[in-house]
C-alpha cells in the first residue's frame, strides 16, 4: 500500500479527543485522624447526624462480629462481613428517604439494619433457611441479589415504573467494584442515562473482588466510567460517614429533581476476607490491611465526637445497646428454623402448575413411605 500516508509521523497534530483531566480526589470531611477538613468546615458538621451515623455503624459492626462468630460455631453456613464498609453503607442509606426503594447487593448488612431489617431476617439466608430473608415492600429494601450486577437493571426498570406513576423518586442500587465489570451494570448506566431515569447507583469500591484487586478489574475508577455514560458522578471517601452522607444527599437530590441518574463511588476497604470461606492471606499483604485499619470509619467518627464534647456516657449507653443486639443476634440465629421442602412447592408459581402438583404429591408419598418403612 505504497500510496498511503506514513501514519506514524510524530510531528502530526494530535487528532485525539482531549483526555480527561486528572482524577478528582474523593470528597472528605473528616480525616482518618478525626480532624475536620476545609471542605468539611465549609459544609458544616452536624453532630446530631454524626452521632446517628456512629450509632448505626457501631451496631452494624457488632452484628457483623456476632455473625462471624456464629459461622465459626457452625450456626451459619456462610457470612460475608461488612467490616470496614459501615460508613459507606450507613452514610448513604441514611441520606435517602424511607420511601426510596433500594436494591442492595449481598454485603449491605449495615444498610439493612438502618432500614429496620431484624437479625432473624438478616441471618436466615446465611443459615440456609431461605434465599431472601425479608418482605421487600415493608421496608422498601429489596432482598439481596447474589448474581452480580443484576439488581442494577431491576433498579432501572423500577425507576421506569416510578416515572410512570409520577412524583419524585430515587431508586438506589448498591454494587461493588467487581460487579461493575458485568455488562448488566453498563447496560443499566446506559439506559438510566439515556432516559433520565431516577436511579442512584452506589458503588462501594472496597478494592477487592474476592482475590482480584481493582488494578486488574479496570483502568479508570467507576465514577469516571459512569460519567462517560452521562451520569452525574460523585467520588467520596467511603470511610468518612459524614462525607458519604452529604455526597449521597446531593446526588439523591439531583436524581429526585429529575435531572437524571447519578453515581456515588465510595472508596472503602473490605477488612475481612471475601466471605468466611475465603483466605485473604493468599493474595494480599498485612501492610495493606494495616493501612486501611488506620482509616477505620468508626474510629475516625468517634475521635471527632469525643473532640466535640460527646459525653462518655453516650458511648457507654451505645455499648450497652450493642451488647443487647449481640444477645439478640445469637438468640435469633439459633431460633431460625429450617423450612419444609413441602412448603416450597407452593412458592415457585403463583397459579397451580400441574407438574409441581404431581411432584408435591410424589414427594409426600415418598416421605410417607420412608416413615412407614423406617
Amino acid at each position: 500500500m505504497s500510496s498511503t500516508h506514513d501514519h506514524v509521523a510524530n510531528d502530526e497534530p494530535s487528532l485525539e479527543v482531549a483526555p480527561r483531566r486528572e482524577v478528582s480526589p474523593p470528597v472528605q470531611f473528616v480525616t482518618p485522624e478525626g480532624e475536620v477538613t476545609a471542605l468539611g468546615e465549609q459544609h458544616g458538621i452536624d453532630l446530631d447526624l454524626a452521632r446517628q451515623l456512629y450509632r448505626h455503624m457501631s451496631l452494624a459492626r457488632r452484628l457483623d462480629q456476632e455473625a462471624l462468630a456464629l459461622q465459626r460455631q457452625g450456626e451459619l453456613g456462610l457470612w460475608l462481613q461488612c467490616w470496614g464498609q459501615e460508613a459507606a453503607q450507613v452514610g448513604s442509606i441514611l441520606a435517602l428517604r424511607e420511601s426510596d426503594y433500594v436494591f442492595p447487593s449481598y454485603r449491605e448488612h449495615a444498610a439493612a439494619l438502618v432500614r429496620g431489617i431484624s437479625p432473624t431476617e438478616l441471618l436466615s439466608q446465611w443459615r440456609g433457611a431461605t434465599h431472601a430473608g425479608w418482605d421487600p415492600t415493608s421496608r422498601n429494601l429489596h432482598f439481596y441479589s447474589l448474581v452480580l450486577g443484576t439488581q442494577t437493571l431491576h433498579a432501572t426498570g423500577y425507576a421506569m415504573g416510578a416515572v410512570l406513576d409520577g412524583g419524585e423518586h430515587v431508586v438506589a442500587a448498591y454494587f461493588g467494584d467487581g460487579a461493575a465489570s458485568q455488562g448488566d451494570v453498563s447496560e443499566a448506566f446506559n439506559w438510566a442515562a439515556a432516559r433520565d431515569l431516577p436511579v442512584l447507583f452506589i458503588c462501594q469500591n472496597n478494592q477487592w473482588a474476592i482475590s482480584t484487586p481493582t488494578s486488574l478489574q479496570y483502568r479508570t475508577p467507576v465514577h469516571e466510567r459512569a460519567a462517560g455514560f452521562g451520569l452525574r458522578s460523585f467520588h467520596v471517601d467511603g470511610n468518612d460517614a459524614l462525607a458519604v452522607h452529604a455526597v449521597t444527599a446531593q446526588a439523591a437530590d439531583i436524581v429526585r429533581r429529575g435531572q437524571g441518574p447519578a453515581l456515588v463511588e465510595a472508596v472503602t476497604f473490605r477488612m475481612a476476607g471475601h466471605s468466611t470461606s475465603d483466605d485473604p492471606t493468599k493474595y494480599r499483604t498485612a501492610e495493606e490491611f494495616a493501612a486501611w485499619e488506620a482509616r477505620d470509619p468508626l474510629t475516625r467518627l468517634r475521635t471527632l465526637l469525643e473532640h466535640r464534647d460527646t459525653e462518655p456516657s453516650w458511648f457507654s449507653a451505645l455499648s450497652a445497646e450493642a451488647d443487647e443486639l449481640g444477645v439478640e443476634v445469637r438468640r435469633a440465629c439459633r431460633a431460625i428454623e429450617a423450612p419444609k421442602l413441602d412448603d416450597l412447592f407452593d412458592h415457585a408459581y403463583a397459579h397451580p402448575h400441574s407438574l409441581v402438583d404431581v411432584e408435591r404429591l410424589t414427594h409426600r408419598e415418598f416421605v410417607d413411605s420412608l416413615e412407614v418403612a423406617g
Partner: protein
Amino acid sequence: MTSLDATPTAGATPPGTKTTTMTLGKALNAGLRRAMQDDDHVVLLGEDVGALGGVFRITEGLQDEFGAQRVVDAPLAESAIVGAAIGLALRGYRPVCEIQFDGFIYPAFDQIVSQLAKMRARSGGRVTLPVVIRVPVGGGIGAVEHHSESNEAYFAHTAGLRVVSCADPGDSYRLIRAAIASDDPVIFYEPKRRYWDKGPVDLDAAPASLDRARVLREGRDVTLVAHGPTVKTALAAAEAATEDGFSVGVVDLRTISPLDMDTLMRCAETTGRMVVVHEASTFLGIGAEIAAAITEACFHVLEAPVLRVGSYNLPYPPAKVEDDFLPDVDRVLDAVDRALKF
C-alpha cells in the same frame, strides 16, 4: 392461588359474536391492544416496538394509541430489557417484552433464568412477577443465522417459568391475553412463519387456559403432538395419512411448561402410538420429555415407543437447506409409518 382457566373447555376457540378473520400477527396485535386497554399497568418494551411496530409489526399502532411511556423503544440490550421488566413488575406493572428474534434471547438468559424464573421462589412467594417475554420463533422464512431457532426446551427445563406456544390466530389471541393475565412469568412463543396465516378470531373470547392442550383432531391409530409452527404440519400429515386409511389425531400442546399430561395420556391410551413433532433438535427437545413421561405413565398400553420428529443435532443451517432440516409432512408420515410398524 387461582387457576387462570376462564374457559369451560380447552378445545378449539368456540365461535362468538365478534368473530372476524385475521392473520396470526394481527390477532396478537389485537390481543396486546385489548390487554393494554383493560389494564393500564400493561407496558410493552423491546427493540423497535414503537414507531416501527416491531420488525414483524406485532405492536403496530400501539405506541400511537398508548404513548411512548407504555410502548417503549428500548436501547439495544436484551439483558436490560428483561432486567428492566423485572423492575417494572416489582413496581406493580405487567411488562410485555419483545425479543426481536429467537436467537437474540440469549443475552437475556441470566436475567430470565436466575432472576425472572427464581425471584418468586426466592422470596418465599412474596414477590409476583407478571412478565411476558414474546419471542418470534422457528424457521421456514428463509432468514439468516440466529433468526430461525427453536429454543423452548431451555426455558421449559427452567423451573419458575411458564412456556406457551401459539399456533393459530384465534388461539393466539386468547393465549397472549392469558399470558399477560398470568401472575407467573411466561415465555411466549410466536410461530413466525405462521404470522401471515389467516383464521377466525373471536374478539370476545375469554383468555385461554395456560395448562390445557387442545385436541384438534381425534384419532384412533396414532396421535401427533405438535406446538406452534408444527401444528399446521401435523394437521397436514394427519390429513395425508387419512388417504392411506389411517386415523391420526393431532394435539396442539399450547403450553410446554407445564405439559397437559392428562390430555396426552388420554390420547396415548386411545391410540397406543404417539409421534411428537417440533422444530427444535430432537436431542433433549420437548419430545424427549413427552416420550419419557408418557412411556412411564402408559407403559402397558403403548404399542410402539413414542417417536420424535425434530431437527438434527446441528446449528440451524443456511436458509437454502432449511427445508431439509425442518420436520415436514414427509418426515412426519415416515415416523407415523414407523410407529405403525412396531
